[in-house]
Every structure is written in C-alpha cells, then in structure tokens.
C-alpha cells in the first residue's frame, strides 16, 4: 500500500479510517525518520543540483552548489591545495553579495558635479569608458584591490596600452612584510609557513588564524599542529587578544611597536645560553658587532616592551627547545614607523632556529606559473599621497576604480574624496555603492566572482606552483513578474578589454584563461592529465585549477644574512593634542573577523556574525582593558570619544581583560555613510581608519596604521550592545570548574580533570577554602 503524504493526511482526517490504516500497516521504523523535503514528493523542488569549482576573491578554491541556476551554498574545494576543502567564515557571504537587494542594476552616469546619477545603457557606458580612456592617454590610473595572475596581467596590459598605471589599494597593505622577507630571505614573494610540521610556533602581531593573509590555509595547518601525534606549543605576541592570541599556549602582551625588540631579546637569550647549535648562532650573529646583543638582554628591555623578564626567557627556551620551530609576523607589528625592523628581527629568528627551507620552518615559494604575476600588495601610503596630489592638481584625467574604496580606507588627512573630485572622469566598477563611488561620474555594475572568468595565482602559495581558475557558475536571476534581469552587470576585465579594443592582445578573459590553460597543457606536467587540450581544460575546470607539487624550484636564496639589529629603532607614535581631557592610548585598528576591511559590510550575514572575542554584531566597538576602564569609570556599552590630532569618533566601549592597559583597539569595516554600502551597512558604526594620523613606516613609506595615539574620554550615556554573549551564558553558567570547557594538562585524562575539579568545587561549597 503506497500513499503519498497528502493522500495519507486526507485518509487520516477521519479518525476511524486513520485507525484502520494504522492497524493495517503499523508504523514501520522508517516512518520514524524525519524526512527532508527532498524526499517528500509534494514538496520536492524539481531540478538537479550541480557543484562547480571556482576560485573566490580571497584566493580560496571553492565549490558552489547550483540548483536551477541559483547558487545555494559555497564550500571549500577538497582538491584545491590552499584550503583543501575548508572555507572561511566569509566564504558564504558571496551568496548574499550575489543576490544583494541593493546591487547596482545597470550603468549610471553623473553628467556634472552635484547632479544625481541617471541610468544609461551599457552601449553608451562602454563608448564613454573607451572615450575617457583614450582621452586620458598618459594620464590614466586603474586602481584595484591587489590582484594577481591573469587578472593582474590583463588589467596591467590595459593600463599600459593607454600609457597609464595599474595601482593596488589595500588599507592594510603588506608592503612592510614583503620588504622584511626580501631583507632576510632575499625572496620576492611571501613564503610558506610549515605550521603543521612545526613543534613550536612563535608569531608576532598578525591574526593568522582570523584575518591575516591566508587564514583558512593556516587554520588547516593549525589543526594538524594541534592534533597530530605530538601537540605543538604556540606563542603569540600582540597587544590585543585576537583569536590567534587566544589560541596560543602563551600570550606575550608586547606593547605596539616593540615586537622587534622582543624578537631580538629572545634571540639574545638563545645566543647567550647557547640554546641552539653553534652554526645557527654564527649565521645569526655574522653581521652583529660583538656584544651588541647584550643591549637587548631581557632585564634591559622588559619594562620598555611590556613583557616580563621571566616570559622572555621562557619564550626563548621554548623556541630553542623542541623543534622544529618557526617564527613569523606581520599585521600590527609591521604597521609601525619601525615596521621593517620589527619584522626583520622576527623573521631572522628562523635563522637562529635553523629551520629555513626545512620541514616545520619557512619554505620559499617558486615563481608563478607561466610568468604570471604571483605577488601583489597595495601601494604604500607614501605612493598614494603622491598619486592623490597628482589627481588634486588635475594631472590625471581618468581614474578607474574597482574594489578600492580609497575614501573609506585612507586617513582623512589625504582627502581622497577631494582628490577624486579634481579628476575629470572617475569610473567606478562596483556592485553596491561605496564611499569612493559617490565621487564617480560613471558607475558600472560589476559581476560577482561567481559570474566571472578569471585566473589567479594564490599568494602565499603552498610551496609549489598553483593556478586557480575562476569560471561563471550562475547567471543573473530574473524578476518574478517582468522576467527582466534583476541586474545587468559585467566582468570588470572584459569591460576594460572591450574599451581598449585592439590596443590589448586579448579579446576576453575567457580567451585568456583558455590560452593560458592550453600553454600549461603543452608543458605536460602537473595535477591534470588529458589526451588533448579540450579534455585538459575540462579537467582543470572540474578541479578549480591546476598545480604541480614537483614545481618547487625557487630562486634568490639568502647569501649574506644582514644584521637583524642594523635597523633597530623604537616606534614613532603620533603626537597628541595638548589640552584635551582624557587618557592617552595607542590606537590599534584591526580587521573585523567577518567584515574584514569593510569589503563584506554590505551583506547581512557578515553584519550578523558575532565577533569571536566580544560577540558583538552589527556595530563598532572599542576594546579597552577591563581594569583600565574601571579606573576611568567606563562600563560596557558606554559611549566614549576617541580623539586623534586628525579627528574624533564616538563609539561604545567593550571592556575585557584581554588587551594591554595602554591600548585601545577598534575594528575596521563599518562607518559607511547614509545610502552607502547598501541597506545593511549604511549609517552604521564608525570608520576608525579616517582618524589615523599619517605616520609612515620609515623604509617603505607604508601607513603605520598602528602608530596613532588617541585621547579617550567618556561621552554621554550608554547603550546595550547587540551581542551574542548573554543569550546563553546565563543558562550554561559554569556549575563548577571545567563546565562547559574542560581543561586538562598534557597527559591528564578528562576523568582525572573532572574529579579534580569536582573536589575543588566540593571544597568551595563547603567553605573549606
């Protein structure tokens, strides 16, 4: 007897009939299984899903579940070497960016300053773009987020075809890191950190498990580091407790700008106590004058850098102890006036550990396949100051912006908006309006990466050649009533190619991808084998890319190790205003776990994801040391003014114990003005980047974004945070130690720890102690 569910419900509607059915059929065990709608015929959604491999904007390999032309889920590509099937918190945000209700629907033009944007056709927009690029021959700037591989090659070719320049913008650019890697290892690209095979990890300033460089890749390595046969030991130096600091076995609360001093102090202990082989010490000290390291003895630097003598000694002994050991750094450690010194000192520790080029240490990456650009970082702040001065002077005729929100991401002092206003033609490719696009006179709706062809060379690579292929997996959805496309966007690079016409050697991004893959096929090596180029292309698309684990040859090995103390300098923090009432802090901005630098702010999922440390969502907060806040009379949710010599923002305070007392930390990503960033981001929170003082790293000219001092004072009133904390903690309060997070010492069983905790609890409630 086979009944559909609807038929069953109809029959069962009469109690007598229902009783008969139950009596006759019984209730088979399978009926007790809760059925997903997929198994219920009357609810079944017709269609078959497909999974397509592609590469996302952050360099991860992803697979996208597509059903009836709609993207439903994004997951990590199990084949792709960078993330081996895993993905980041922000990976799924691309679905909401794709179907965002405030996506720019079509091209728009502003005919004169102050006038509103009006819709125009793509034909008109394309002609206008081509005209403006031609008019600007020699005076064209194409500005994008850092891109690599074929994307960078095409964009660069287009800019060059008009004697213009391709510039990258990244508010938290990695130029200082690149310079340090070049100085210590003579490498032009960021190396691979073999965290999985290390026993001891010592990191400085970078939230490598959260937001820095390639956090998904590093997290997969971290899992192996923690879960292998031999649990590794991790130390992390940072002034604020990021999730990386939280994961560390030992948090070193170094003051901002003193990371280099800490690294050299650790080295001084290792050298003095001869904790590593003589050859390593000789290599490290080759260019250090005799006795110089003694100036960094823990007793001499501890007070200055904020880490105790005991902690420095302990860190040195652990780092030099059971190996292999690896040291790396970046983030706020490099975002100082002495950033190159800090990071040079950090990376030089690997020479002392003797793990450069070895398992569990620093491993260099080969050049990008097919001579494609394999490394990208934003231009330095100094370069941007010069560039914006040219715009302001009217020396640049056309600026093309894509993924580069200069107005939101640069300090207020450079007035990026004002500079854009002095450029004749500003073209902004965007899917949701951002701050910079409000200064544009031509808005062109841009595809999501899910709709694009593209070719990426991931950085950092995993130690061998990798090419990531991007392919369109969906089309624009149609309006339910009019059947018109909800938005009419195009690939940024294809639009540029079309505008450049015969000036560039390619006709489309797809053609470039196919040609490059054909070249790879002719090399006859790597992860895909096929009988002909067409099958090879299919194989590459199915895997989301191509890689060759044997292509590991690198160039530029260090021949002469420079002295890590040659560039020693203290941090040059900004001045503070005289006469302003309040307490002085070092202001440390940090990338938001889900919004990152603000690129994800338009999506509701990104806004609603609670910050791991504070659990706050939908807003901007300022992290301040719990005891310091108490001293200042500041409680959670209190509005406080954070004032620098450049400006002031008012945000809510979140006091907690995981931050140095002289530091105030504020996440980047919010602060979009009214009608900017879409309905979920507009008029929400504050943009801390705008009040940074324009201090520069002394060697690279990069923005020293962690070198601003601020005066903090109470403002009026307080307001409860939209935060997750408090939803559950009142229910699952620790009934006794170890509930819910049970902590064991190495070798201790859970049962032993529970017994011990219970004993402590019994003593506590009987007031024995």
């Amino acid at each position: 007897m086979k009944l559909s569910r609807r038929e069953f419900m109809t029959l069962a509607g009469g109690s007598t009939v229902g009783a008969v059915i139950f009596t006759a059929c019984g209730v088979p065990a399978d009926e007790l299984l809760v059925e997903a709608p997929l198994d219920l015929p009357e609810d079944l959604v017709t269609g078959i899903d497909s999974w397509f491999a592609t590469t996302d904007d952050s360099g991860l390999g992803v697979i996208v579940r597509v059903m009836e032309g709609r993207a439903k889920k994004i997951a990590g590509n199990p084949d792709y070497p960078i993330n081996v099937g895993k993905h980041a918190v922000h990976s799924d945000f691309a679905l909401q960016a794709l179907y965002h209700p405030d996506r720019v629907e079509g091209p728009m033009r502003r005919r004169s300053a102050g006038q509103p944007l009006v819709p125009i056709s793509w034909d008109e927009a394309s002609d206008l773009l081509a005209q403006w690029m031609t008019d600007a021959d020699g005076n064209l700037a194409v500005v994008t987020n850092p891109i690599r591989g074929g994307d960078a090659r095409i964009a660069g070719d287009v800019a060059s075809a008009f004697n213009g320049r391709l510039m990258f913008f990244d508010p938290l650019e990695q130029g200082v890191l690149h310079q340090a890697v070049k100085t210590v290892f003579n490498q032009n690209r960021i190396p691979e950190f073999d965290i999985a095979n290390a026993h001891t990890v010592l990191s400085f300033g970078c939230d490598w498990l959260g937001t820095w460089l390639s956090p998904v890749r590093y997290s997969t390595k971290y899992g192996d580091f923690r879960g292998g046969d031999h649990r590794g030991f991790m130390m992390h130096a940072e002034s604020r407790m990021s999730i990386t600091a939280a994961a560390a076995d030992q948090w070193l609360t170094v003051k901002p700008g003193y990371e280099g001093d800490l690294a050299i102090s650790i080295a001084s202990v290792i050298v003095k106590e001869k904790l590593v082989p003589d050859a390593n010490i000789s290599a490290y000290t080759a260019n250090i004058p005799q006795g110089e390291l003694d100036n960094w003895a823990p007793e001499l630097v501890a007070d200055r850098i904020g880490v105790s003598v005991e902690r420095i000694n302990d860190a040195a002994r652990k780092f030099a102890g059971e190996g292999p050991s690896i040291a790396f750094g970046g983030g706020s450690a490099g975002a100082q006036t002495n950033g190159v010194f800090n990071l040079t000192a950090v990376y030089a520790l690997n020479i002392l550990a003797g793990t450069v080029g070895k398992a569990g240490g620093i491993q260099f990456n080969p050049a990008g396949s097919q001579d494609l650009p394999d490394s990208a970082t934003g231009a330095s702040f100094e370069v941007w100051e010069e560039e914006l001065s040219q715009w302001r002077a009217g020396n640049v005729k056309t600026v093309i912006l894509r993924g580069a929100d200069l107005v939101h991401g640069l300090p207020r002092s450079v007035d990026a908006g004002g500079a854009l206003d002095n450029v004749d033609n500003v073209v902004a490719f965007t899917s949701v309006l951002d701050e910079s696009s409000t200064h544009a006179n031509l808005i062109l709706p841009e595809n999501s990466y899910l709709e694009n062809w593209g070719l990426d060379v991931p950085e950092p690579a995993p130690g061998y050649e990798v090419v990531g292929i991007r392919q369109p997996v969906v089309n624009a959805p149609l309006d339910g009533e009019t059947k018109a496309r909800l938005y009419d966007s195009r690939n940024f690079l294809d639009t540029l190619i079309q505008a450049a016409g015969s000036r560039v050697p390619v006709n489309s991004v797809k053609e470039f991808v196919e040609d490059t893959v054909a070249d790879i096929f002719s090399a006859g090596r790597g992860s895909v084998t096929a009988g002909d180029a067409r099958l090879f292309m299919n194989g590459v698309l199915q895997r989301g890319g191509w890689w060759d684990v044997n292509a590991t040859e690198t160039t530029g090995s260090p021949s002469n190790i420079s002295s890590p103390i040659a560039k020693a300098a203290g941090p040059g923090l900004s001045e503070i205003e005289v006469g302003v009432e309040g307490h002085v802090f070092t202001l440390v901005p940090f990338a938001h776990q889900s919004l990152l630098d603000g690129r994800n702010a338009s999506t509701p999922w990104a806004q609603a994801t609670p910050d791991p440390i504070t659990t706050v969502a939908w807003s901007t907060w300022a992290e301040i040391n719990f005891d310091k806040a108490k001293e200042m009379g500041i409680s959670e949710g209190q509005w406080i003014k954070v004032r620098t010599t450049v400006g002031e923002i008012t945000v809510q305070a979140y006091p907690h114990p995981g931050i140095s007392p002289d530091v105030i930390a504020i996440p980047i990503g919010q602060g979009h003005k009214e009608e900017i960033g879409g309905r979920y981001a507009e008029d929400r929170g504050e943009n801390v980047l705008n009040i940074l003082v324009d201090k520069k790293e002394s060697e690279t000219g990069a923005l020293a974004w962690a070198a601003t001092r601020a005066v903090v004072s109470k403002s009026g009133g307080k307001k409860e945070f939209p935060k997750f904390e408090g939803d559950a903690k009142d229910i699952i309060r620790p009934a006794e130690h170890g509930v819910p997070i049970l902590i064991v010492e190495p070798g201790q069983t859970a049962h032993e720890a529970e017994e011990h905790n219970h004993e402590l609890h019994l003593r506590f409630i009987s007031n024995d102690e």
Partner: protein
Amino acid sequence: MVTAAERVSSHKWGMVVDVDRCTGCQACVMACQAENNIPLSTEDIYRQKRTFAWIRVERYWYGDFPDVKARFIPIMCQHCENAPCEPVCPVFATYHNTEGMNVQIYNRCVGTRYCANGCPYNVRFFNYWEPVWPVSLRNQLNPDVTVRSRGIMEKCSFCVQRIRRGVREAARDGHDLQDGDIGTACTDACPTNALVFGDYNDENSRVSIMAKDDRKYTLLDALNTDPNVLYLAQVDATGGAIGGHD
C-alpha cells in the same frame, strides 16, 4: 546499555568536538546559517536576546591580564539519548529517531516551547516572527530545507538533508556508506577539523576512534542526558599558569 537507536538502526550519528583545535573563527556558524535557511539575526533580534544559531561558539575568559585566556567552545543540539526536550512535547513534534538523532517535525509543532524550557543546553530556537528575506536573497535559500514559519521551534538537525542524500546516493551507486561520505555543513567548513561528524556504529569511523580519547567528556554530564555530541577537553600546556584550574 543498548539504546533504542542501536537496536534498530545500522547508523548512530554523532559528532565529536575537539575543543583544543577550535579557534572560534565562526566558519561553522556561518556555514550552518547558509545551509539551513536560518532566519537572519537582525540588530533588533540581537538586542532582544533572541538570536538564531543552531551552532554557536561561546567564549569564556579565564584569568586576568596578562595571565588571561579566551577559550572557545562550539555548542549545538547535543542529540541526547535521554533528551529532556522529548518527553515534554505534547504533540510529539520532537522525538528520538532510530539513528541517534533528536529530531523536530516542524509541521507537527504547535509552539508550546516546553522543549526549549527543558533543554539544558539552550539550543532550541523559537520563531517569534515570520522569517523575512528580501526577494532577491531568497534565491539563495536551500530547497532541501524547510523555511520555518512563525510559531515553530527549530534546532540543529545534524543536517538531516545531507544524511538522507548520502544514504540515498550510496544506495543508488550500490556501495556502503564510508566514513566521511556524509558531512554536516559545520564539520565540512571547520578549517581546523575541530568538528568531526560520523557514525558511532562504524567502529572504524573517526568519531568512534575519537570517542575513545582520554580527553573525552560530555557537557553537563551530571544531568545524564547521554549526548551524541562528545567533546575532547582543551589542553593547557602551561600547567595551569593561565588560570585554567583555579
């Protein structure tokens, strides 16, 4: 004791959470939201303390500056064998199935919320409002998962739609299910492999092996709920110097 599930089913699904690997990155939380059509927790909903999170990552502070640690633990429905939520449901909308899962039948739920009151883990969520998405965002909704309406209780389903799909595809292709064939959205996403899903009835599965780890414990063990979600304790390699045992 042999449970009812073990008697009648070839599968006993469960999860092991290695707290020592969890970094609190929220990838599991977001993957779950996208997979299971979970209503958006707007700013207003946050303020009302009615956020939806079938899986959440709780953060606990241990110690004081500078000897302080933030520790994270992912918490989802524990799929208890002795689930306090099940006997209190007057309409049998929540019950224990034959595969070790605590399941929720949406179209049977009448919204008494007794189950949420009974759950000691606070992992059940009530739809006080009809979930609303802008029209264009509905393109993303997963057609395998019912969108719950106002007045309905919901919770982690162990991504039952993925289990059903995996079982069906294995039968179609004529092979037995292998460990790792089925992953929940959260376990698939977790970059550190802190979350592992599998079949306890397969003695070679990763969850079965991890369940024998000396660090294994269950949440609120004293309540004897017998969860199918097991935890592996966090290791403090500093010997308690950061407040872990104080």
